[in-house]
Protein backbone atom coordinates (compact mmCIF):
# COMPACT_ATOMS: atom_id res chain seq x y z
CA UNK A 1 0.00 0.00 0.00
CA UNK A 2 2.85 2.35 0.79
CA UNK A 3 4.15 2.01 -2.74
CA UNK A 4 0.83 2.86 -4.23
CA UNK A 5 0.50 5.91 -2.10
CA UNK A 6 3.96 7.11 -3.00
CA UNK A 7 3.17 6.61 -6.66
CA UNK A 8 -0.01 8.57 -6.31
CA UNK A 9 1.71 11.53 -4.71
CA UNK A 10 4.15 11.51 -7.54
CA UNK A 11 1.35 11.62 -10.08
CA UNK A 12 -0.45 14.46 -8.37
CA UNK A 13 2.75 16.43 -8.29
CA UNK A 14 3.34 15.78 -11.94
CA UNK A 15 -0.04 17.05 -13.02
CA UNK A 16 0.88 20.53 -11.98
CA UNK A 17 -2.24 22.34 -10.90
CA UNK A 18 -2.94 25.29 -13.09
CA UNK A 19 -4.98 28.40 -12.50
CA UNK A 20 -8.55 28.32 -11.21
CA UNK A 21 -9.87 29.04 -14.64
CA UNK A 22 -8.07 26.12 -16.24
CA UNK A 23 -9.25 23.91 -13.42
CA UNK A 24 -12.84 24.95 -13.87
CA UNK A 25 -12.62 24.61 -17.62
CA UNK A 26 -11.34 21.11 -17.26
CA UNK A 27 -13.49 19.89 -14.37
CA UNK A 28 -16.78 21.75 -14.69
CA UNK A 29 -18.63 18.50 -15.39
CA UNK A 30 -17.27 17.06 -12.20
CA UNK A 31 -18.31 20.10 -10.20
CA UNK A 32 -21.77 19.94 -11.73
CA UNK A 33 -22.03 16.31 -10.77
CA UNK A 34 -21.10 16.88 -7.15
CA UNK A 35 -23.60 19.70 -6.59
CA UNK A 36 -26.30 17.45 -5.03
CA UNK A 37 -23.74 16.21 -2.53
CA UNK A 38 -22.66 19.74 -1.64
CA UNK A 39 -26.29 20.77 -1.34
CA UNK A 40 -26.88 17.95 1.11
CA UNK A 41 -24.02 19.12 3.29
CA UNK A 42 -25.08 22.74 3.05
CA UNK A 43 -28.69 21.98 3.86
CA UNK A 44 -28.47 19.34 6.55
CA UNK A 45 -25.07 19.90 8.16
CA UNK A 46 -24.12 23.56 7.78
CA UNK A 47 -27.59 25.06 7.95
CA UNK A 48 -28.16 23.51 11.42
CA UNK A 49 -24.77 24.84 12.56
CA UNK A 50 -25.92 28.30 11.61
CA UNK A 51 -29.31 27.57 13.19
CA UNK A 52 -27.52 26.77 16.43
CA UNK A 53 -27.29 30.54 16.92
CA UNK A 54 -30.70 30.30 18.58
CA UNK A 55 -28.65 29.18 21.58
CA UNK A 56 -28.16 32.91 22.14
CA UNK A 57 -31.86 33.66 21.91
CA UNK A 58 -35.02 33.30 23.85
CA UNK A 59 -36.32 31.47 20.82
CA UNK A 60 -39.99 31.21 19.98
CA UNK A 61 -40.92 29.31 16.80
CA UNK A 62 -43.78 31.73 16.26
CA UNK A 63 -41.50 34.76 16.25
CA UNK A 64 -38.85 32.93 14.25
CA UNK A 65 -35.11 33.37 14.07
CA UNK A 66 -35.25 37.06 13.19
CA UNK A 67 -38.08 37.94 15.55
CA UNK A 68 -36.84 36.23 18.70
CA UNK A 69 -35.09 38.15 21.42
CA UNK A 70 -31.27 37.94 21.60
CA UNK A 71 -30.12 37.27 25.15
CA UNK A 72 -26.38 36.73 24.77
CA UNK A 73 -24.89 34.03 26.95
CA UNK A 74 -27.84 33.84 29.36
CA UNK A 75 -28.77 30.31 28.34
CA UNK A 76 -25.22 29.09 28.87
CA UNK A 77 -24.84 30.85 32.19
CA UNK A 78 -28.13 29.38 33.28
CA UNK A 79 -27.03 25.88 32.29
CA UNK A 80 -23.61 26.03 33.93
CA UNK A 81 -25.07 27.32 37.19
CA UNK A 82 -27.99 24.90 37.31
CA UNK A 83 -27.77 21.95 39.71
CA UNK A 84 -28.40 19.67 36.74
CA UNK A 85 -25.13 20.53 35.03
CA UNK A 86 -22.72 18.55 37.22
CA UNK A 87 -25.12 15.61 37.28
CA UNK A 88 -25.50 15.53 33.50
CA UNK A 89 -21.80 15.85 32.89
CA UNK A 90 -21.07 13.13 35.40
CA UNK A 91 -23.64 10.76 33.92
CA UNK A 92 -22.57 11.39 30.36
CA UNK A 93 -18.95 10.67 31.19
CA UNK A 94 -19.66 7.75 33.52
CA UNK A 95 -21.87 5.97 31.04
CA UNK A 96 -19.63 6.45 28.03
CA UNK A 97 -16.35 5.81 29.79
CA UNK A 98 -17.65 2.67 31.48
CA UNK A 99 -18.92 1.49 28.13
CA UNK A 100 -15.51 2.24 26.71
CA UNK A 101 -13.62 0.43 29.48
CA UNK A 102 -15.67 -2.74 29.18
CA UNK A 103 -16.94 -2.47 25.66
CA UNK A 104 -13.68 -1.62 23.94
CA UNK A 105 -11.52 -4.58 25.01
CA UNK A 106 -14.38 -7.10 24.77
CA UNK A 107 -14.31 -7.48 20.97
CA UNK A 108 -10.50 -7.61 21.02
CA UNK A 109 -10.61 -10.48 23.50
CA UNK A 110 -13.30 -12.25 21.52
CA UNK A 111 -11.25 -11.88 18.34
CA UNK A 112 -8.13 -13.20 20.08
CA UNK A 113 -9.98 -16.24 21.40
CA UNK A 114 -11.64 -16.84 18.06
CA UNK A 115 -8.33 -16.56 16.30
CA UNK A 116 -6.97 -19.41 18.38
CA UNK A 117 -9.82 -21.76 17.50
CA UNK A 118 -8.80 -24.23 14.84
CA UNK A 119 -12.11 -26.08 14.50
CA UNK A 120 -13.94 -24.45 11.58
CA UNK A 121 -17.38 -25.45 12.75
CA UNK A 122 -16.94 -24.10 16.23
CA UNK A 123 -15.55 -20.88 14.83
CA UNK A 124 -18.43 -20.50 12.41
CA UNK A 125 -21.00 -21.22 15.12
CA UNK A 126 -19.53 -18.72 17.54
CA UNK A 127 -19.23 -16.06 14.86
CA UNK A 128 -22.78 -16.52 13.65
CA UNK A 129 -24.29 -16.27 17.10
CA UNK A 130 -22.22 -13.35 18.29
CA UNK A 131 -22.73 -11.23 15.17
CA UNK A 132 -26.47 -11.70 15.26
CA UNK A 133 -27.46 -9.18 17.97
CA UNK A 134 -25.97 -6.37 15.87
CA UNK A 135 -28.87 -6.76 13.47
CA UNK A 136 -31.57 -6.44 16.07
CA UNK A 137 -32.96 -2.95 16.25
CA UNK A 138 -32.34 -0.70 19.23
CA UNK A 139 -36.05 -0.53 19.91
CA UNK A 140 -36.32 -4.30 20.11
CA UNK A 141 -33.20 -4.64 22.23
CA UNK A 142 -34.54 -2.07 24.69
CA UNK A 143 -37.94 -3.72 24.57
CA UNK A 144 -36.32 -7.03 25.47
CA UNK A 145 -34.34 -5.42 28.29
CA UNK A 146 -37.50 -3.84 29.68
CA UNK A 147 -39.43 -7.08 29.63
CA UNK A 148 -36.55 -9.13 31.00
CA UNK A 149 -35.82 -6.92 34.01
CA UNK A 150 -39.44 -6.39 35.01
CA UNK A 151 -40.58 -8.41 38.03
CA UNK A 152 -42.27 -10.88 35.66
CA UNK A 153 -39.29 -11.08 33.30
CA UNK A 154 -36.61 -13.73 33.23
CA UNK A 155 -33.86 -11.57 34.74
CA UNK A 156 -36.22 -9.90 37.19
CA UNK A 157 -37.41 -13.28 38.41
CA UNK A 158 -33.89 -14.66 38.75
CA UNK A 159 -32.70 -11.63 40.69
CA UNK A 160 -35.84 -11.77 42.79
CA UNK A 161 -35.21 -15.40 43.65
CA UNK A 162 -31.57 -14.73 44.55
CA UNK A 163 -31.99 -11.56 46.59
CA UNK A 164 -35.61 -11.74 47.66
CA UNK A 165 -36.08 -8.21 46.33
CA UNK A 166 -38.53 -8.62 43.51
CA UNK A 167 -38.70 -5.07 42.21
CA UNK A 168 -38.24 -3.68 38.75
CA UNK A 169 -34.52 -3.39 38.17
CA UNK A 170 -35.01 -0.30 36.02
CA UNK A 171 -36.29 1.55 39.08
CA UNK A 172 -32.97 1.24 40.85
CA UNK A 173 -30.59 4.07 39.90
CA UNK A 174 -27.55 1.92 40.71
CA UNK A 175 -28.49 -0.74 38.19
CA UNK A 176 -28.95 1.44 35.15
CA UNK A 177 -25.27 1.55 34.32
CA UNK A 178 -24.74 -2.23 34.33
CA UNK A 179 -27.95 -2.79 32.39
CA UNK A 180 -26.89 -0.27 29.78
CA UNK A 181 -23.33 -1.50 29.46
CA UNK A 182 -24.17 -5.19 29.36
CA UNK A 183 -26.86 -4.76 26.73
CA UNK A 184 -24.47 -2.56 24.76
CA UNK A 185 -21.76 -5.20 24.82
CA UNK A 186 -24.22 -7.94 23.98
CA UNK A 187 -25.26 -6.05 20.90
CA UNK A 188 -21.88 -4.96 19.63
CA UNK A 189 -19.16 -7.35 20.78
CA UNK A 190 -19.48 -9.81 17.90
CA UNK A 191 -19.77 -7.25 15.16
CA UNK A 192 -16.92 -5.15 16.51
CA UNK A 193 -14.69 -8.20 16.71
CA UNK A 194 -14.81 -8.67 12.93
CA UNK A 195 -12.47 -5.79 12.31
CA UNK A 196 -9.87 -7.24 14.69
CA UNK A 197 -10.30 -10.70 13.23
CA UNK A 198 -9.62 -9.25 9.82
CA UNK A 199 -6.53 -7.50 11.12
CA UNK A 200 -5.41 -10.72 12.81
CA UNK A 201 -5.80 -12.78 9.67
CA UNK A 202 -3.32 -10.45 8.00
CA UNK A 203 -0.59 -11.30 10.48
CA UNK A 204 2.34 -13.01 8.86
CA UNK A 205 2.19 -16.72 9.72
CA UNK A 206 5.96 -16.98 9.45
CA UNK A 207 6.28 -15.06 12.66
CA UNK A 208 4.26 -17.71 14.47
CA UNK A 209 6.30 -20.46 12.95
CA UNK A 210 9.48 -18.77 14.04
CA UNK A 211 8.07 -18.43 17.53
CA UNK A 212 7.09 -22.08 17.54
CA UNK A 213 10.62 -23.05 16.79
CA UNK A 214 11.75 -20.86 19.68
CA UNK A 215 9.35 -22.85 21.83
CA UNK A 216 7.07 -19.94 22.66
CA UNK A 217 3.76 -20.80 24.38
CA UNK A 218 0.34 -19.72 23.21
CA UNK A 219 0.10 -16.83 25.61
CA UNK A 220 3.49 -15.42 24.81
CA UNK A 221 2.68 -15.62 21.11
CA UNK A 222 -0.53 -13.66 21.75
CA UNK A 223 1.34 -11.02 23.74
CA UNK A 224 4.40 -10.63 21.58
CA UNK A 225 3.13 -11.24 18.07
CA UNK A 226 -0.65 -11.00 17.84
CA UNK A 227 -1.36 -7.96 19.96
CA UNK A 228 1.33 -5.70 18.51
CA UNK A 229 0.17 -6.60 15.02
CA UNK A 230 -3.25 -5.05 15.55
CA UNK A 231 -1.92 -1.95 17.31
CA UNK A 232 -2.73 0.53 14.54
CA UNK A 233 -6.27 -0.73 14.15
CA UNK A 234 -6.76 -0.56 17.88
CA UNK A 235 -5.49 2.98 18.22
CA UNK A 236 -7.51 4.25 15.28
CA UNK A 237 -10.66 2.74 16.67
CA UNK A 238 -9.86 4.05 20.13
CA UNK A 239 -9.56 7.63 18.89
CA UNK A 240 -12.85 7.28 17.10
CA UNK A 241 -14.43 5.88 20.25
CA UNK A 242 -13.05 8.78 22.29
CA UNK A 243 -14.64 11.16 19.84
CA UNK A 244 -17.97 9.67 20.70
CA UNK A 245 -17.56 9.98 24.45
CA UNK A 246 -19.94 12.92 24.72
CA UNK A 247 -22.34 11.29 22.28
CA UNK A 248 -23.67 8.47 24.42
CA UNK A 249 -26.31 6.41 22.71
CA UNK A 250 -29.13 8.75 23.59
CA UNK A 251 -31.69 6.84 21.56
CA UNK A 252 -31.10 3.83 23.71
CA UNK A 253 -31.16 5.82 26.94
CA UNK A 254 -34.37 7.50 25.90
CA UNK A 255 -35.93 4.11 25.38
CA UNK A 256 -34.75 2.74 28.71
CA UNK A 257 -34.77 5.50 31.29
CA UNK A 258 -37.54 6.86 33.47
CA UNK A 259 -37.86 9.66 36.03
CA UNK A 260 -37.06 7.33 38.93
CA UNK A 261 -33.51 6.87 37.66
CA UNK A 262 -32.77 10.24 36.06
CA UNK A 263 -30.09 10.62 38.73
CA UNK A 264 -27.87 8.11 36.95
CA UNK A 265 -29.35 7.89 33.47
CA UNK A 266 -30.06 11.44 32.37
CA UNK A 267 -27.33 12.55 29.98
CA UNK A 268 -26.77 15.78 28.08
CA UNK A 269 -28.49 14.68 24.88
CA UNK A 270 -31.58 13.30 26.61
CA UNK A 271 -31.77 16.52 28.60
CA UNK A 272 -31.60 18.51 25.38
CA UNK A 273 -34.43 16.45 23.98
CA UNK A 274 -36.66 16.81 27.04
CA UNK A 275 -36.02 20.51 27.38
CA UNK A 276 -36.78 21.12 23.74
CA UNK A 277 -39.56 18.76 22.87
CA UNK A 278 -41.21 18.41 26.24
CA UNK A 279 -41.00 21.93 27.61
CA UNK A 280 -40.30 24.07 24.53
CA UNK A 281 -37.20 25.75 25.94
CA UNK A 282 -35.73 25.73 22.44
CA UNK A 283 -32.97 28.29 22.92
CA UNK A 284 -31.83 26.82 26.20
CA UNK A 285 -31.75 23.25 24.92
CA UNK A 286 -29.85 24.33 21.81
CA UNK A 287 -27.27 25.96 24.06
CA UNK A 288 -26.84 22.71 25.96
CA UNK A 289 -26.52 20.79 22.69
CA UNK A 290 -23.94 23.24 21.39
CA UNK A 291 -21.89 22.80 24.54
CA UNK A 292 -21.95 19.06 23.88
CA UNK A 293 -20.80 19.47 20.27
CA UNK A 294 -17.92 21.70 21.25
CA UNK A 295 -16.74 19.23 23.91
CA UNK A 296 -16.89 16.48 21.33
CA UNK A 297 -14.77 18.35 18.88
CA UNK A 298 -12.22 19.20 21.55
CA UNK A 299 -12.01 15.56 22.61
CA UNK A 300 -11.37 14.13 19.19
CA UNK A 301 -8.84 16.77 18.24
CA UNK A 302 -7.07 16.21 21.56
CA UNK A 303 -7.00 12.44 21.21
CA UNK A 304 -5.78 12.66 17.66
CA UNK A 305 -2.98 15.06 18.56
CA UNK A 306 -1.76 12.76 21.31
CA UNK A 307 -1.86 9.67 19.15
CA UNK A 308 -0.11 11.49 16.34
CA UNK A 309 2.66 12.57 18.64
CA UNK A 310 3.32 9.25 20.38
CA UNK A 311 2.17 6.57 17.95
CA UNK A 312 2.14 8.39 14.66
CA UNK A 313 -1.44 7.31 13.99
CA UNK A 314 -3.81 10.02 12.85
CA UNK A 315 -7.36 10.23 11.55
CA UNK A 316 -6.54 12.97 9.09
Amino acid at each position, binding site marked *: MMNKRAARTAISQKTKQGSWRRDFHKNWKLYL*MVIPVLMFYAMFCYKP*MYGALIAFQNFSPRLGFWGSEWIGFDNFVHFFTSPDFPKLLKNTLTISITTLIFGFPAPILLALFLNEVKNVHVKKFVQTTTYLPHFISVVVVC*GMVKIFVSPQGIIGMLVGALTGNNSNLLMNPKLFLPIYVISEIWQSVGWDSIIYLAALSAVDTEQYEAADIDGAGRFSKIFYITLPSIQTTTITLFILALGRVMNVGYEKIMLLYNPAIYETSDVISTYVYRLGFETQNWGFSTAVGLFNSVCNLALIVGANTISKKYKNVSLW
Partner: protein
Amino acid sequence: MKNKIKKSTGERAFDAVNTTLLILIALVMIYPLYYVLVASFSTYNSLIKSNGFLLYPSEFTIEAYKMAFKNPMVLRGYANTMFAVIVGVAVNLLLTAIGAYFLSRRDVKLQKPISILIVITMYFSGGMIPFYFTVKGFGLEGSLWSLVIPTAINTFNLIIMKTAFSEIPHSLEESVEIDGGGHFIMLFKIIMPLSKATFAVIGLYYAVAHWNAWFNAMLFLKERTQFPIQLILREILIQNNMQGMSEGVGFAEANYVGETIKYAIIVISTLPILIVYPFMQKYFVHGVMIGAVKG
Protein backbone atom coordinates in the same frame (compact mmCIF):
# COMPACT_ATOMS: atom_id res chain seq x y z
CA MET B 1 2.73 -29.01 8.16
CA LYS B 2 2.70 -27.63 11.66
CA ASN B 3 -0.24 -29.82 12.52
CA LYS B 4 2.02 -32.80 12.26
CA ILE B 5 3.99 -31.61 15.28
CA LYS B 6 2.51 -33.15 18.34
CA LYS B 7 0.76 -30.64 20.53
CA SER B 8 1.83 -30.41 24.13
CA THR B 9 -0.66 -31.09 26.90
CA GLY B 10 -0.66 -27.41 27.72
CA GLU B 11 -1.57 -26.58 24.15
CA ARG B 12 -4.40 -29.07 24.16
CA ALA B 13 -5.71 -27.85 27.49
CA PHE B 14 -5.65 -24.31 26.15
CA ASP B 15 -7.62 -25.37 23.09
CA ALA B 16 -10.18 -27.24 25.16
CA VAL B 17 -10.69 -24.40 27.59
CA ASN B 18 -10.80 -21.83 24.83
CA THR B 19 -13.32 -23.76 22.77
CA THR B 20 -15.56 -24.47 25.74
CA LEU B 21 -15.41 -20.88 26.83
CA LEU B 22 -16.32 -19.58 23.41
CA ILE B 23 -19.20 -21.99 22.99
CA LEU B 24 -20.43 -20.94 26.40
CA ILE B 25 -20.25 -17.26 25.44
CA ALA B 26 -22.09 -17.99 22.21
CA LEU B 27 -24.84 -19.84 24.08
CA VAL B 28 -25.25 -17.05 26.61
CA MET B 29 -25.46 -14.53 23.81
CA ILE B 30 -28.03 -16.41 21.81
CA TYR B 31 -30.18 -17.42 24.78
CA PRO B 32 -32.11 -14.13 25.13
CA LEU B 33 -33.26 -14.47 21.54
CA TYR B 34 -34.10 -18.12 22.00
CA TYR B 35 -36.03 -17.26 25.14
CA VAL B 36 -38.10 -14.70 23.26
CA LEU B 37 -38.95 -17.32 20.66
CA VAL B 38 -39.92 -19.91 23.23
CA ALA B 39 -41.86 -17.44 25.37
CA SER B 40 -43.85 -16.25 22.38
CA PHE B 41 -45.31 -19.74 22.07
CA SER B 42 -46.13 -20.03 25.76
CA THR B 43 -49.18 -18.97 27.71
CA TYR B 44 -48.77 -15.95 29.95
CA ASN B 45 -49.77 -17.74 33.13
CA SER B 46 -47.36 -20.58 32.68
CA LEU B 47 -44.65 -18.05 31.87
CA ILE B 48 -45.10 -16.27 35.19
CA LYS B 49 -44.99 -19.55 37.08
CA SER B 50 -41.99 -20.84 35.17
CA ASN B 51 -39.54 -18.84 37.31
CA GLY B 52 -37.37 -17.74 34.46
CA PHE B 53 -35.36 -20.31 32.63
CA LEU B 54 -37.09 -22.01 29.69
CA LEU B 55 -35.83 -24.48 27.12
CA TYR B 56 -39.10 -25.18 25.33
CA PRO B 57 -42.52 -23.48 25.38
CA SER B 58 -44.48 -24.01 28.56
CA GLU B 59 -48.05 -24.79 27.52
CA PHE B 60 -47.68 -24.37 23.76
CA THR B 61 -50.04 -21.86 22.15
CA ILE B 62 -50.07 -19.57 19.12
CA GLU B 63 -52.60 -17.21 20.69
CA ALA B 64 -50.04 -14.40 20.92
CA TYR B 65 -49.37 -14.55 17.19
CA LYS B 66 -53.07 -14.53 16.37
CA MET B 67 -53.45 -11.35 18.37
CA ALA B 68 -50.28 -9.77 17.04
CA PHE B 69 -51.43 -10.20 13.47
CA LYS B 70 -54.75 -8.57 14.29
CA ASN B 71 -52.92 -5.29 14.65
CA PRO B 72 -53.13 -3.62 11.25
CA MET B 73 -50.29 -1.28 12.13
CA VAL B 74 -47.66 -4.01 12.07
CA LEU B 75 -48.07 -4.64 8.34
CA ARG B 76 -48.51 -0.97 7.54
CA GLY B 77 -45.35 -0.23 9.49
CA TYR B 78 -43.50 -2.84 7.49
CA ALA B 79 -44.52 -1.23 4.23
CA ASN B 80 -43.32 2.17 5.40
CA THR B 81 -40.04 0.75 6.60
CA MET B 82 -39.58 -1.00 3.25
CA PHE B 83 -40.01 2.36 1.53
CA ALA B 84 -37.40 3.93 3.76
CA VAL B 85 -35.00 1.04 3.24
CA ILE B 86 -35.36 0.65 -0.53
CA VAL B 87 -35.62 4.28 -1.56
CA GLY B 88 -33.31 5.36 1.24
CA VAL B 89 -30.52 2.97 0.31
CA ALA B 90 -30.83 3.85 -3.39
CA VAL B 91 -30.49 7.57 -2.62
CA ASN B 92 -27.72 6.86 -0.11
CA LEU B 93 -25.66 4.83 -2.54
CA LEU B 94 -26.10 7.23 -5.43
CA LEU B 95 -25.09 10.32 -3.48
CA THR B 96 -22.36 8.57 -1.55
CA ALA B 97 -20.87 7.18 -4.75
CA ILE B 98 -20.88 10.59 -6.42
CA GLY B 99 -19.34 12.20 -3.38
CA ALA B 100 -16.72 9.49 -3.05
CA TYR B 101 -15.93 9.71 -6.74
CA PHE B 102 -15.38 13.43 -6.47
CA LEU B 103 -13.19 13.12 -3.40
CA SER B 104 -11.11 10.41 -5.01
CA ARG B 105 -10.20 12.69 -7.96
CA ARG B 106 -6.72 14.02 -7.51
CA ASP B 107 -6.41 16.68 -10.16
CA VAL B 108 -9.26 18.89 -8.98
CA LYS B 109 -8.48 22.14 -7.26
CA LEU B 110 -11.53 22.31 -4.99
CA GLN B 111 -11.15 18.70 -3.90
CA LYS B 112 -9.10 19.56 -0.83
CA PRO B 113 -11.27 22.35 0.62
CA ILE B 114 -14.46 20.42 -0.04
CA SER B 115 -13.09 17.32 1.58
CA ILE B 116 -12.16 19.35 4.66
CA LEU B 117 -15.65 20.84 4.83
CA ILE B 118 -17.12 17.37 4.63
CA VAL B 119 -14.87 15.83 7.25
CA ILE B 120 -15.66 18.63 9.71
CA THR B 121 -19.30 17.53 9.78
CA MET B 122 -18.19 14.20 11.20
CA TYR B 123 -16.94 15.84 14.35
CA PHE B 124 -19.11 18.89 14.77
CA SER B 125 -22.83 19.42 14.39
CA GLY B 126 -25.42 22.02 15.23
CA GLY B 127 -27.26 19.64 17.50
CA MET B 128 -30.66 18.06 17.68
CA ILE B 129 -32.88 21.14 17.97
CA PRO B 130 -31.43 23.18 15.07
CA PHE B 131 -31.45 20.02 12.95
CA TYR B 132 -35.12 19.59 13.69
CA PHE B 133 -35.93 23.18 12.76
CA THR B 134 -33.85 22.88 9.58
CA VAL B 135 -35.62 19.78 8.31
CA LYS B 136 -38.94 21.34 9.23
CA GLY B 137 -37.90 24.49 7.39
CA PHE B 138 -37.43 22.54 4.16
CA GLY B 139 -41.00 21.35 4.42
CA LEU B 140 -40.14 17.70 4.92
CA GLU B 141 -42.24 17.40 8.05
CA GLY B 142 -45.10 14.98 7.65
CA SER B 143 -43.58 13.28 4.62
CA LEU B 144 -41.92 9.89 4.34
CA TRP B 145 -39.07 11.67 2.54
CA SER B 146 -38.04 13.02 5.91
CA LEU B 147 -36.73 9.51 6.58
CA VAL B 148 -34.63 9.57 3.43
CA ILE B 149 -33.30 13.00 2.55
CA PRO B 150 -31.92 14.36 5.84
CA THR B 151 -29.87 11.15 6.19
CA ALA B 152 -28.90 10.90 2.53
CA ILE B 153 -25.17 10.68 3.21
CA ASN B 154 -23.31 9.26 6.14
CA THR B 155 -19.89 10.90 6.08
CA PHE B 156 -18.19 7.89 7.60
CA ASN B 157 -19.48 5.67 4.79
CA LEU B 158 -18.51 8.31 2.27
CA ILE B 159 -14.91 8.22 3.47
CA ILE B 160 -14.85 4.43 3.35
CA MET B 161 -16.10 4.46 -0.22
CA LYS B 162 -13.63 7.16 -1.20
CA THR B 163 -10.82 5.00 0.14
CA ALA B 164 -12.05 2.06 -1.88
CA PHE B 165 -12.26 4.16 -5.04
CA SER B 166 -8.76 5.47 -4.51
CA GLU B 167 -7.43 1.92 -4.63
CA ILE B 168 -8.58 1.49 -8.22
CA PRO B 169 -5.60 1.67 -10.59
CA HIS B 170 -5.39 4.99 -12.33
CA SER B 171 -4.64 3.43 -15.71
CA LEU B 172 -8.16 2.06 -16.00
CA GLU B 173 -9.61 5.50 -15.54
CA GLU B 174 -7.27 7.05 -18.03
CA SER B 175 -8.46 4.65 -20.71
CA VAL B 176 -11.99 5.97 -20.27
CA GLU B 177 -10.78 9.55 -20.42
CA ILE B 178 -8.97 8.82 -23.65
CA ASP B 179 -12.13 7.29 -25.11
CA GLY B 180 -13.86 10.55 -24.27
CA GLY B 181 -16.27 9.02 -21.75
CA GLY B 182 -17.85 11.28 -19.11
CA HIS B 183 -17.73 11.00 -15.37
CA PHE B 184 -20.96 9.05 -15.12
CA ILE B 185 -19.66 6.42 -17.52
CA MET B 186 -16.50 6.23 -15.49
CA LEU B 187 -18.38 5.91 -12.22
CA PHE B 188 -21.02 3.46 -13.31
CA LYS B 189 -19.16 1.41 -15.89
CA ILE B 190 -15.67 1.22 -14.49
CA ILE B 191 -15.64 1.99 -10.82
CA MET B 192 -18.93 0.50 -9.70
CA PRO B 193 -18.35 -2.98 -11.16
CA LEU B 194 -14.87 -2.97 -9.69
CA SER B 195 -16.10 -2.15 -6.21
CA LYS B 196 -19.23 -4.29 -6.09
CA ALA B 197 -18.37 -5.62 -2.66
CA THR B 198 -17.88 -2.13 -1.31
CA PHE B 199 -21.27 -1.12 -2.62
CA ALA B 200 -22.82 -4.21 -1.08
CA VAL B 201 -21.30 -3.48 2.30
CA ILE B 202 -22.06 0.23 2.35
CA GLY B 203 -25.55 -0.63 1.17
CA LEU B 204 -25.85 -3.06 4.05
CA TYR B 205 -24.72 -0.39 6.52
CA TYR B 206 -27.29 2.04 5.20
CA ALA B 207 -30.02 -0.58 5.14
CA VAL B 208 -29.41 -1.53 8.76
CA ALA B 209 -29.48 2.15 9.73
CA HIS B 210 -32.80 2.72 7.97
CA TRP B 211 -34.25 -0.43 9.44
CA ASN B 212 -33.27 0.69 12.94
CA ALA B 213 -34.31 4.32 12.68
CA TRP B 214 -37.19 5.60 14.76
CA PHE B 215 -36.08 8.91 16.19
CA ASN B 216 -36.43 11.02 13.05
CA ALA B 217 -39.70 9.32 12.25
CA MET B 218 -40.99 10.28 15.68
CA LEU B 219 -39.99 13.89 15.18
CA PHE B 220 -41.07 14.40 11.60
CA LEU B 221 -44.03 12.16 10.85
CA LYS B 222 -47.54 13.14 11.81
CA GLU B 223 -49.85 10.47 10.48
CA ARG B 224 -49.94 7.12 12.16
CA THR B 225 -50.31 5.46 8.77
CA GLN B 226 -46.82 6.67 7.85
CA PHE B 227 -45.04 5.24 10.87
CA PRO B 228 -42.20 2.80 10.25
CA ILE B 229 -42.26 -0.48 12.08
CA GLN B 230 -39.79 0.63 14.74
CA LEU B 231 -42.10 3.39 15.92
CA ILE B 232 -44.95 0.93 16.20
CA LEU B 233 -42.65 -1.41 18.10
CA ARG B 234 -41.71 1.42 20.41
CA GLU B 235 -45.35 2.01 21.26
CA ILE B 236 -45.94 -1.62 22.04
CA LEU B 237 -42.64 -2.62 23.65
CA ILE B 238 -41.47 0.55 25.36
CA GLN B 239 -44.59 2.54 26.08
CA ASN B 240 -46.59 -0.62 26.73
CA ASN B 241 -49.41 0.82 24.70
CA MET B 242 -51.54 -2.14 23.74
CA GLN B 243 -54.20 0.06 22.26
CA GLY B 244 -55.20 -1.38 18.94
CA MET B 245 -53.46 -4.57 19.99
CA SER B 246 -56.65 -5.52 21.72
CA GLU B 247 -58.84 -4.47 18.84
CA GLY B 248 -61.85 -6.72 18.67
CA VAL B 249 -60.79 -8.56 21.80
CA GLY B 250 -62.28 -8.07 25.20
CA PHE B 251 -59.67 -6.23 27.19
CA ALA B 252 -59.72 -8.82 29.93
CA GLU B 253 -58.54 -11.54 27.56
CA ALA B 254 -55.99 -9.17 26.10
CA ASN B 255 -54.39 -8.92 29.51
CA TYR B 256 -54.13 -12.65 29.89
CA VAL B 257 -52.12 -12.87 26.72
CA GLY B 258 -50.29 -9.79 27.95
CA GLU B 259 -46.55 -9.89 27.68
CA THR B 260 -46.52 -12.84 25.32
CA ILE B 261 -47.85 -10.60 22.53
CA LYS B 262 -44.72 -8.56 22.97
CA TYR B 263 -42.56 -11.63 22.50
CA ALA B 264 -44.53 -12.54 19.39
CA ILE B 265 -44.16 -9.01 18.04
CA ILE B 266 -40.41 -9.16 18.59
CA VAL B 267 -40.21 -12.42 16.68
CA ILE B 268 -42.33 -11.09 13.82
CA SER B 269 -40.32 -7.92 13.51
CA THR B 270 -36.92 -9.59 13.74
CA LEU B 271 -37.60 -12.57 11.50
CA PRO B 272 -36.94 -10.83 8.16
CA ILE B 273 -33.49 -9.81 9.34
CA LEU B 274 -32.75 -13.33 10.48
CA ILE B 275 -33.77 -14.68 7.09
CA VAL B 276 -31.50 -12.30 5.18
CA TYR B 277 -28.71 -12.70 7.71
CA PRO B 278 -27.01 -15.84 6.29
CA PHE B 279 -26.86 -14.25 2.84
CA MET B 280 -25.22 -11.12 4.17
CA GLN B 281 -22.69 -12.86 6.32
CA LYS B 282 -20.11 -13.42 3.60
CA TYR B 283 -19.82 -9.66 3.08
CA PHE B 284 -19.13 -8.85 6.71
CA VAL B 285 -15.43 -9.45 6.70
CA HIS B 286 -14.87 -7.58 3.49
CA GLY B 287 -17.03 -4.78 4.87
CA VAL B 288 -15.05 -4.08 7.96
CA MET B 289 -11.82 -4.62 6.09
CA ILE B 290 -12.43 -1.63 3.88
CA GLY B 291 -13.49 0.27 6.97
CA ALA B 292 -10.22 -0.59 8.63
CA VAL B 293 -8.04 0.72 5.84
CA LYS B 294 -8.29 4.36 6.71
CA GLY B 295 -7.60 6.95 4.03
